[in-house]
């Protein structure tokens, strides 16, 4: 089972993600924004980070950019949660070093199948 960091300022979204992943047996920690996430990520090592894009304090793309620069996260899958209404964010996120994206809305099964894919 993998150690996953879920980052979202929306509690409901965050809970859905956390609940789903825990139900699948993963060890999940959560963060409300980029700053918090970065602290947690530096404190321990995650196998996967799933982050929302639009967040106060530090947005998801900035978070990914900073994480990618950490040697511990050089090759770690970093996924962003985006909406179809903002396709430009995908490219922006990719440029920052994101592995890929999960398009909102998504259901738990979709989330799990993507997670399963990136974790192999």
């Amino acid at each position, binding site marked *: 089972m993998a150690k996953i960091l879920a980052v979202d300022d929306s509690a409901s979204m965050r809970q859905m993600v956390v609940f789903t992943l825990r139900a699948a047996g993963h060890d999940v920690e959560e963060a409300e924004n980029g700053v918090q996430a970065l602290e947690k990520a530096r404190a321990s090592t995650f196998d996967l980070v799933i982050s929302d894009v639009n967040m106060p304090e530090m947005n998801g793309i900035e978070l990914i950019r900073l994480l*990618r620069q950490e040697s511990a996260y050089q090759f*770690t*899958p*970093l996924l962003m949660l985006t909406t179809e209404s903002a396709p430009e964010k995908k*490219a922006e996120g990719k440029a920052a070093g994101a*592995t*890929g*994206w999960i398009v909102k809305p998504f259901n738990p099964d979709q989330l799990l199948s993507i997670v399963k894919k*990136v974790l*192999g």
Partner: protein
Amino acid sequence: MGIDLSQFHHIFFEESFENVDLLEQGLLALDITQPDVETINTIFRAAHSIKGGAGTFGFQMVADFTHVMENLLDRIRSGQRTLDQDVVDILLGSVDCLRMLLTAAREGGEPDRALCVAQQERLEAALSDSRPASAEPAGEGEEGADSASARVSEQTGWRIVFHPHPELTQRGNDPLRLIRELKELAPARVTCDSSQLPSWDKYEPTRCDLIWTIELMQVVPRAQIEDIFSWVEDECDLAIVPMVKNVVLEGDNSSPSQASQESRPIAAGVSQIASMTEENENHDKKSGQVTRPPTSLPSGHTISQSIRVDLPKVDALINMVGELVITQSMLNMLRDEPELQGYDRLHEGLAQLQRQTRALQEGVMQIRMLPISFCFSRFPRMVRDLGRQLGKDIELVMSGENTEVDKTVIEKITDPLVHLVRNSIDHGIEPSEAREAAGKPRTGHVWLRAYHQVGNIVIEVADDGGGINRDRVLQKARERGLVPADGRLTPQQIDELIFEPGFSTQEAVTDLSGRGVGMDVVRRNVQALGGSISVESEEGKGTTFIIRLPLTLAIMDGQLIQVGDETYIIPLVSVVESLEPDRAMIHYVGGDTETIKLRGEYVPVIRLAEILGVHQPVRPALEDGIVVIVETDRQRYGIFVDDLLNQQQIVIKSLEDNYRRVPGISGATILGDGRVALILDVDGLMGLLKEKEGMVHE
């Protein structure tokens, strides 16, 4: 290791001629006002594929010529050159030239270099005269490829060439993960080209310098593949190319392993990907053979929809089944033997054998069946060219192209159909002005339809032209002495006159139809195939020719008859009825021509024994024997025979294989007891009678 490339020549030519057809069909299908991207891609791929093969196999002229064509097509595809009628015409001309070059290369003959150079110059002129396209070509479609290509080739899967850029792994993606996902879609064969790896001293473990080729052995929606690569589309070079197999049943030496060689990619779907593929092919060349798929696929993964079979093998099989039919009918005759009565299981077995034999026979005959599109495909081009030549605006509407018919029928019906279609365009459809004056649409229509009808295939050639001018036909027929000056004919009888030998109403012999080949030849050719042709016409509205052909030339239902001690077979399709005439029905016309009056109609009767020289007819008087009424295109008549025997399915054998043509006889078959019986040529017999009467009158 030297590989003899000539072993692939055969397959190269076959595939190239198919590609030439694709090119032509694609060009004809193009709507220049709104060119369909997929059609343009199909055309491009066909040219590209010919060029590649020709270069590889050393047919330099073909390769060079196709290269120029490909350049022009590429400009069109990328929108650097407008697609207009001139370009299409030049490309169509090039298709002809290409066909000529390929034919010369295949037959080792000398190509028409002057023609080739001239055509190449035209292509180059079109290239230098590049006018950018005003608008992006409209239309799209991946799975819904145009029907032209779908008909000739069948997709067997996808070939994906995947070249991750170094940053792909540095963003947390894993090429192996993507490949794993692909393998979940369908069985896949993965090869990896490691030739891009730097030497060990420069090796960076975090970089990915490998190129993978993944061949998916099933057709899955392209979107599913694209989905897998959606995160990394900017971090890799990717080509997703359909793997196709050409579906052709043709006499050649292909073995099953050669058949699987055909499952190889043609070039790509969108231009960006196409250029990618070329890049990858270049990689291949540098690295040797790594990404080149092995020539034979592991059998477990191949989803083979068809195989190529030698035509002689098929025919040998058909012959063998023919033998089986004969053996079966021999056993059937035994059924009535007195000493075999009471063996119920034997009789059940015989009945079962009969059903199974028939099913086997039908199944085997199916192998020789091809869609009539093999014949129809030439017409779009022909109609277009003729229309332009004559300045007529003509639309060809085809239907039933997938109707299947025996290969030999297809080969032999093409010429008559060409004649009919030419005829419709030349004589049928009026000039545009005349059409407008008559309140008809400017554009004339020619319909080519095929369909099945109780054991026959029917092919119709129809037009909405002026119809048959009966006054003129009748006038000509009188001038030529075909009908008496005061003879009264029904409209249908007048229409039938156009099939008379030497009849032509066109005074000014045009370049098109008037080559001394008349409708009588068309009728003869159709009849030689065991078929018939009729015409329906309405003045001012148009003309329809209806051809009925047997589905196969190898088997038919026959009525066995007896005269003297000889057995003959009348094709059941010609038989209207059989009757025992009574004296009151028998009349003599003109002294010695016997006729019977049948429902008010006088039907001439041929005495088979006399006309075929049978030694001892058993029943000399008409009222003692049986008259089989038969019908041909020309007329209805009776054949006087001693007895009717059974009806049975017979295997048609040619007399000419070891002997020669015999007047009044269309072929032979072998009966259940192993004896040879002759099949009557119902039309030819009538001719024999006329000949005989002619001699008598002289």
